[in-house]
């Protein structure tokens, strides 16, 4: 909790406990209720909730009043019930499981390739000169543009989806690691030279730890892109997964299913990002703070 926020809470506490006494730091609020209202401060997190919550309430009310057509924008409670029904029927877990599996496999493959190639180009200038121009030019192709080729090569089944997701996860990991390894402070490398570290020790004890924060940033954005591409892959042709649920909802004209899928993507995407962040913080130890 920040100090500013603590102050706010203090002010809030004082206002709520003894509104008659002077409450604001300037001491002007001794009299009327208006001036004591002025010093009411709400914590930042709470401020962020005001608009979403009131939007939800308004949405619910409008939907119930029949202002919003239910096949176009169903009420939040209807969406919640849809999710619940899917969960009870067992469909939800099957689709979520399949999507999570695709993201995990695609991300692992892409991140592994990004780590190997990024480490190679970050460490050896020969590898960088050989590989980096090619990879950089491939990066400028929007990844979705590879879909027809993947479909042609790998078919409509899992492989093409995994390939697309891996491709999305690959570039941020590759770029961040490669650049971070190249940009380790030469002054620190000089310390490594002083202690006569071998090339291997130099990488393990100095270059990798120094590059770690940016590598973790790369992993996080790689994971984000893996989620983006799983949506694309599942929208383009799948018989299962959250993306398939979406397409299904669209085909059958059930907006509640589409919106439920959006929420599922958001929840699981956020959850995996949070997990990755936690792992990153653990790895970075004291540097994270």
């Amino acid at each position: 909790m920040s100090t500013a926020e603590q102050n706010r809470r203090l002010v809030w506490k004082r206002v709520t406990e003894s509104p008659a006494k002077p409450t604001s730091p300037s001491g002007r609020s001794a009299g009327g209720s208006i001036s004591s209202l002025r010093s009411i401060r709400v914590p930042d997190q709470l401020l962020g909730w005001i608009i979403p919550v009131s939007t939800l309430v308004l949405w619910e009310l409008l939907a119930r009043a029949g202002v919003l057509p239910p096949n176009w924008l169903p009420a939040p409670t209807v969406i919640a019930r849809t999710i619940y029904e899917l969960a009870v029927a067992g469909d939800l877990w099957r689709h979520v499981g399949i999507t999570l599996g695709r993201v995990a496999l695609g991300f692992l493959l892409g991140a592994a390739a990004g780590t190997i190639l990024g480490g190679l180009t970050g460490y050896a200038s020969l590898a960088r000169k050989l590989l980096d121009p090619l990879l950089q030019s491939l990066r400028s192709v929007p990844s979705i543009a590879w879909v027809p080729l993947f479909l042609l090569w790998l078919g409509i089944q899992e492989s093409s989806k995994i390939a697309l997701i891996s491709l999305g996860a690959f570039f941020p990991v590759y770029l961040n690691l490669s650049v971070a390894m190249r940009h380790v402070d030469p002054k620190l490398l000089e310390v490594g030279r002083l202690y006569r570290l071998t090339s291997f020790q130099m990488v393990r004890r100095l270059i990798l730890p120094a590059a770690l924060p940016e590598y973790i940033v790369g992993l996080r954005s790689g994971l984000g892109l893996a989620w983006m591409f799983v949506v694309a892959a599942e929208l383009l042709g799948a018989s299962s997964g959250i993306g398939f649920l979406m397409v299904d909802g669209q085909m059958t004209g059930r907006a509640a299913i589409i919106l439920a899928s959006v929420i599922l993507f958001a929840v699981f995407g956020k959850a995996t990002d949070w997990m990755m962040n936690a792992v990153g913080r653990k790895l970075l130890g004291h540097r994270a703070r």
Partner: protein
Amino acid sequence: MIKLIWNYENTMPDSSLFRSGTVDVQIAHKAFAGSQGKLLALTNILLTIDPGEFVCIVGGSGCGKTTLLRIIAGLETDYAGVVALDGTPITGPGLDRGVVFQEHRLFSWLTVHDNVAFGLSRLPPAERALKIRHYINLVGLNDFEYEYPHQLSGGMSQRVAIARALVGSPEVLLLDEPFASLDALTRMRMQQEILRIWEAERTTVVLVTHDIEEAVYLADRVVIMSTQPGTIKKILPVGLPRPRDRADREFVRIRKSVHDEFFDPGTIAPMVPNGSRSVS
């Protein structure tokens, strides 16, 4: 001006004559590639530093004093001449020399303890732990063993850097303007500290500085360097007992004579373009 022509291969003394920690510097010249051809950083450097001696090298920016230190450290190897430690020519960095830079250059991902341990080669665990403990105590950071560099002040970070440089028991401790980025009070305390550490360890110390008072306060001998080209102008012994009193008449006199060497009208360095100034 020292004008010397010598054949350095024949003048390399027999290594058996030395006690441990002798630095013998014979540099004919050292140049850097600059934008307008080669820039001469050092010429005609002849200097022998005795075992256990505290030598300060003073000079303005661009006089090559840091380059000289980096040559002794083995970080610069492309020069004409020979620099030897205990009679063995220096061809690269080695654990027989500990180096402290102006910036602490600690590893942000390691604790104080692990930063100090970085300077140790393979040792039995018990001995290793003992050594690390000893040097952390020596620099007075017993209570900060498991802190990270970002939790330390500038002076404390520099203490860790000194412990890291000393933990491998080097014969020579090389310090490149180690206190230049500290505030005046911390700097004075660190000067006392480095003397105390030196007296405890009795390694040879070579300290590069642009602070005349610091040099006179610390050194057995002050090596005064001139600019363009960087060379040794004068070597001045400081015979005062320690701890030295900065207000002492003799201290002031020596400080003034070092000062006068710099501002001797015959040797005021011409203004040089920035490119060559980075070679300090």
